């Protein structure tokens, strides 16, 4: 049960060639789990999140398989996916502030969306109102246009709308990055509340802000340059990371619980490689203090401890010895 992703590879088509934004990703998200997905900008975390629900141009499906509750998701087929969107997989996009049609009243838009998906708005209205209460939005918002709502209100409205049909998996893309610190905490807590109330079964929270994940995520997946680097429980990632990149990432944080800016990652020497023509093998090797000749081959994403996966030859070797 839950989400299983197997060898998912998604590229971006450009005139200069394919940008290899997501390479061979395999991982699971358990029932009821909130998984954080973190990494520098351009590491492929948004590509991963979006490809699960809305794999549109210029993204291109290359290979792999996605199972949700043991059911195959036709993620490469834009039309066939429509049956699963919102009902099975849903997304709170990064642009939540502009996500609502500016010229329709919010309630009317919701009704039209649901009716178009053969769901009766009348039946669901009571639940919708209950959820508005849950996120502390007045019920009158249904009679308002998006422009009459503040940014934070629009964000919460989108949260309610995206989860209205209790999807099995919710993808939350940078939902806190546009907000001030106080609202960030509130929105993050609402997400946990949503999961607890079964508004969504499990969730993937994409962010570059690890401190938020520390508060709400059960586990964290770290990506680097289109490859999965490390996946473990939140505690393990924060306190005992194994991948050299995760170690540098965590240690570059001033202090756990303090928000870090992407720019501060310049604390790690070097830059991520360009994904148009990435280096062979481990993509972190050029910045990695531990790199050796074996790193020219792609390291396997290996389970070195229960629930702790790492893609690093050094760690694999240690594991093999142990």
């Amino acid at each position, binding site marked *: 049960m839950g989400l299983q992703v197997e060898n998912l590879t998604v590229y971006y*088509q*450009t*005139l200069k060639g394919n940008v290899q934004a997501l390479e061979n990703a395999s991982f699971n998200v358990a029932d009821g789990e909130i998984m954080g997905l973190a990494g520098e900008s351009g590491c492929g975390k948004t590509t991963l999140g979006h490809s699960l629900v809305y794999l549109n*141009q*210029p993204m291109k499906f290359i290979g792999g398989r996605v199972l949700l509750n043991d059911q195959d998701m036709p993620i490469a087929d834009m039309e066939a996916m429509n049956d699963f969107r919102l009902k099975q997989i849903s997304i709170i996009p990064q642009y939540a502030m502009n996500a609502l049609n500016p010229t329709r009243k919010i309630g009317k838009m919701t009704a039209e969306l649901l009716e178009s998906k053969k769901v009766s708005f009348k039946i669901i209205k009571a639940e919708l109102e209950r959820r508005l209460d849950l996120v502390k939005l007045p019920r009158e918002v249904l009679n308002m246009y998006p422009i009459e709502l503040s940014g934070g209100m629009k964000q919460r409205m989108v949260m309610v709308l995206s989860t209205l049909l209790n999807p099995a998996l919710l993808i939350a893309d940078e939902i806190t990055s546009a907000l001030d610190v106080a609202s960030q905490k509130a929105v993050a807590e609402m997400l946990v509340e949503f999961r607890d109330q079964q508004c969504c079964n499990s969730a993937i929270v994409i962010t570059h802000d690890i401190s938020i994940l520390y508060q709400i995520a059960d586990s964290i997946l770290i990506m680097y340059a289109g490859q999965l680097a490390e996946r473990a429980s939140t505690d393990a990632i924060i306190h005992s990371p194994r991948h050299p990149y995760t170690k540098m990432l965590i240690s570059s944080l001033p202090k756990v619980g303090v928000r870090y800016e992407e720019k501060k990652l310049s604390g790690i020497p070097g830059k991520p490689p360009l994904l148009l023509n990435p280096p062979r093998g481990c993509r972190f090797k050029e910045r990695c203090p531990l790199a050796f000749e074996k790193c020219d081959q792609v390291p396997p994403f290996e389970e070195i401890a229960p629930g702790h996966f790492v893609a690093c030859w050094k760690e694999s070797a240690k594991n093999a010895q142990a």
Partner: protein
Amino acid sequence: MQQLKKKNEMLYFAMRNTKLRIGVIIVLIFVILAIIGPYITHYKPRDYVAPGPQPPSSEFWFGTTSFGEDVFSQFVSGLRATFIVGILGGGMGTLIGVLVGFTAGYRGGWLDETLNMLTNIVLVVPSLVVLIIIAAYLEVRGFLFESVFIGCFAWPWVARAIRAQTFSLRTRDFVDLARLSGMKPLKIIITEIAPNMMSYLLLVFILQFGGAILTAATLDFIGLGPTNTVSLGLMMNNAVIYGALLLGMWWWFIPPGLAITIVVGALYITNVGLDEVFNPRLREM
């Protein structure tokens, strides 16, 4: 280095864009015709060259008018006039629009309010009607006069667009930096803001160019064009007045209108192509 690379990339996309290629080639063909045309015909536009109306022949490629004038000679010289009006009128419209828009957007405050009001007023005025009333009172109308006046009424939408662009550009980091380092406003505009708008200005100019050609043709057709030159609009005017339709002299009225349609249409398509080159978002994958 970065700049050079960017330029090469633009050029690369420009060469690959079909719309741009088709548009530019068509416009160029007509430009060449306008330049060399007067040298390959033996006649002056208003010369009497043959008796009565004659259909197209090897001697008179586009036939002759009721007055025995060579239509091809009139056509090429009208085409030349068309391009000059387009460049002068379109250039004038772009220039005024850019000046007003820059000033309003960059200075802001009451100056912006005033210029904005002026822009909106000229915007609602039907410019051709004003041109008609001005031209009607003039006994002698020059070519330059027509171009300049067309430009004087065509600028408002340019000013509006440039103003909005300047607003957004002047709040960007690099302009702030220049201002903090004590650069003079004019220098900031020339060195920091203008280069970022060059591509946009080219698009604006092309649209103004096409618009000026259409306006001039309309004015010429009413009979209020330049009194001393032949133009494509005037050819159509003469054709209608002197019964070319009833006499079935299609060679008299088809070429001038067709040329305008093709040139302006090609300009519009060039504009779309250029837009795709400049805006990566619009590029086809």
